[in-house]
């Protein structure tokens, strides 16, 4: 057996990586986002995307949606560590692909395209609730809402039709039906 020269143990087996969407309700106070982001970076967790905005103006509660990847053990730790933070009220954890959860991302695409191309582009975007936000005879800005993978694919398709700038939000999530998460 090779002699380990480290004062620490060697890494053990790594479990299967899962993608989760974690929703955190926090007090909207100074430094709260740094606390959440710092927890992730300090403990070596991933943040794939992050969306945050105040959802309750009276109580100053913000809702943060984080897309992350990790082994089941790491995902459990993320949940437990988040719950320990003082400004955190509650944490919800959804596995990617769960049936009763809705996910959406919003993207803005700026296209250089003439009228003919524009029709083609609208057609491609048709499934993703396209809205034209700005239009000139050389360019236009189109908004779509879709799943992350769909937007990924769309961006590739639009590339050859004159895509010059992309802006995307992180994913936001909500449960289906009348239930809310408590």
């Amino acid at each position: 057996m090779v002699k380990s020269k480290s004062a620490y143990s060697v890494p053990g087996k790594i479990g299967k990586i899962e993608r989760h969407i974690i929703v955190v309700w926090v007090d909207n106070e100074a430094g709260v986002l740094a606390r959440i982001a710092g927890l992730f970076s300090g403990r070596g967790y991933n943040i794939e995307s992050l969306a945050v905005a105040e959802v309750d103006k009276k109580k100053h509660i913000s809702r943060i949606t984080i897309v992350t990847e990790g082994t089941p053990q790491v995902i459990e730790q993320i949940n437990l560590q988040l719950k320990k933070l003082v400004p955190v009220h509650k944490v919800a954890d959804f596995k990617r692909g769960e049936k009763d959860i809705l996910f959406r991302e919003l993207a803005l695409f700026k296209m250089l395209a003439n009228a003919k191309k524009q029709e083609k582009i609208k057609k491609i975007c048709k499934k993703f609730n396209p809205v034209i936000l700005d239009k000139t005879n050389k360019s236009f800005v189109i908004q779509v809402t879709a799943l992350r993978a769909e937007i990924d694919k769309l961006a590739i398709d639009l590339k050859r039709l004159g895509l010059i700038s992309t802006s995307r939000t992180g994913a936001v999530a909500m449960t289906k039906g009348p239930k809310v998460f408590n």
Partner: protein
Amino acid sequence: MPKLFTGAEIVFKALEDQKVDYIFGYPGGAVLPIYDELKNHKSIKHILARHEQGAGHAAEGYARSSGKPGILLVTSGPGATNAVTALTDAYMDSVPLVCISGQVPTHLIGTDAFQECDTTGITRPCTKHNWLVKDVNDLARVLHLAFEVATTGRPGPVLVDIPKDIQFKKGKYSFSKSTLKKKLNGRATHKISNNELDKFIDLLKKSSKPIFYTGGGVINSGPQASEYLRELVSLTGFPITSTLQGLGAYPGDDPQFLGMLGMHGTFEANNAMHDCDLMINIGARFDDRITGKVDEFSPESKKIHVDIDPSSIGKNIKVDLAIVSDVSKFLKSLIKRFKEKNKNFLSSNKQKTSKWWSTIEKWREKKSLNFINSNKIIKPQHAVQRLYELTKDKDTFVTTEVGQHQMWAAQHYKFNKPNRWMTSGGLGTMGYGLPAAIGVQIANPGKLVVDIAGEASVLMTMQEMSTAVQYKLPIKIFILNNEYMGMVRQWQELLHEKNYSESYTAALPDFVKLAESYGCVGIRAKTPDELDEKIKEMVNIDRPVIFDCLVDKAENCFPMIPSGKPHNQMILGPEEEEEISDEGKILV
């Protein structure tokens, strides 16, 4: 119109309402208004350290030996950054600290002002929570919340950063208890169900190779928790081992106690952990110094984990029964339930665990803490043993630095009470023990307080001897002086082909003269013959003492689990290489 107070007055009113009697600190420009107010509050005494790190460790020593939170007062910029090591140390070892730091006035924040730093930014990862107070009317609420966060759930440090203008401004003061409505640390208020208790008891009854594995959580839960633990261990007749931080919760000289476990734990404790069929973890966190290689950690056992911090459960090791609770509360209900239903458990279960006990006795016969003593040169283990024998009849408090001496202290000094052993386990901070001893002595006047130290560690915070002399604190600094950073040297010998890269300290000070220059007493012991006399001399001096104990320079700390190995593959000592007769060994 309610009476208005300045920010500085609010700070002291809050401290008074929280029944604070000592503050450890160091003044500076951005906290001067608070220091100015100190004179008006006679019930609160300030201990002036020589460095903010020293003040922080002293506050830790105070907290750990008294069970009350330690209070730290520092200035902005370097004052705050110097406190970071102590805050991180307290965070890792779950010590309740409330650090109040000065900050540049609010209008200068963000301008790179003199002695400005982003204190809340820097301390965010090493505190349970921190606050920058920008409105004087928030100050009282924040301060009381700070005490609550520091002392509830899994304890830890918090920091309140107060800009200088807020210290001058006038605002309202009020004290309402329990401002924190949310549950701390997840389920701190969680009620223990009979179902959980019965599952626990069922596992106890089914086991034929059980072991209790207890940690600092028992100490943190208060002295009552140690009482309950002793009761449960004696009710079951099961063996018990403890982590470094848990020492003292169970009597170190009791036959059911297998000694400390982990990297430098005893052969019997580690083998019992590896081979057991039931592991009962109470208030310990499966730290990597304990588990060794995680994949091969105690492969055949069912595991129970009782912890107040839900994120400690399942972090490193999967367990079969998880119980989120304060140790004391849980053990109280468990013992009650257990007694109701299992009247003669001890005698009826004796047969079931007898084979297990005889296996343990066989491991014990290895006498893994043995070392080869000498009559020419002081062996460091021998020095700790003599110190123990000559101080065990007093209610002695021991702190340590970090390294070989720390492990020898843990192995050879037996603790019978909780809160008597203060050591930096999680962060492993060299320089912890001397200032911690100051805090311990403040909290326990008249008691014997010994810092078992190494010469390299103690030099990191040696300036605090001046603090000890100023406040007439008769702490004893017992230095096992081998002129090496012993643990570094040991790893280099065993794993880096004896390349002793930078681990030898040439030009050490003369510790006896150093003691004299600080105004305390210096004693040196060079040979085993004079050791006892010198220790007695040290104990009898009612002043601070630096004891320079010259020990074998090449001694290694055994037993040892090499990195990446499971518990049943320990190195027992140099005798593994060359057989030495039993007469040559000293029995422990």
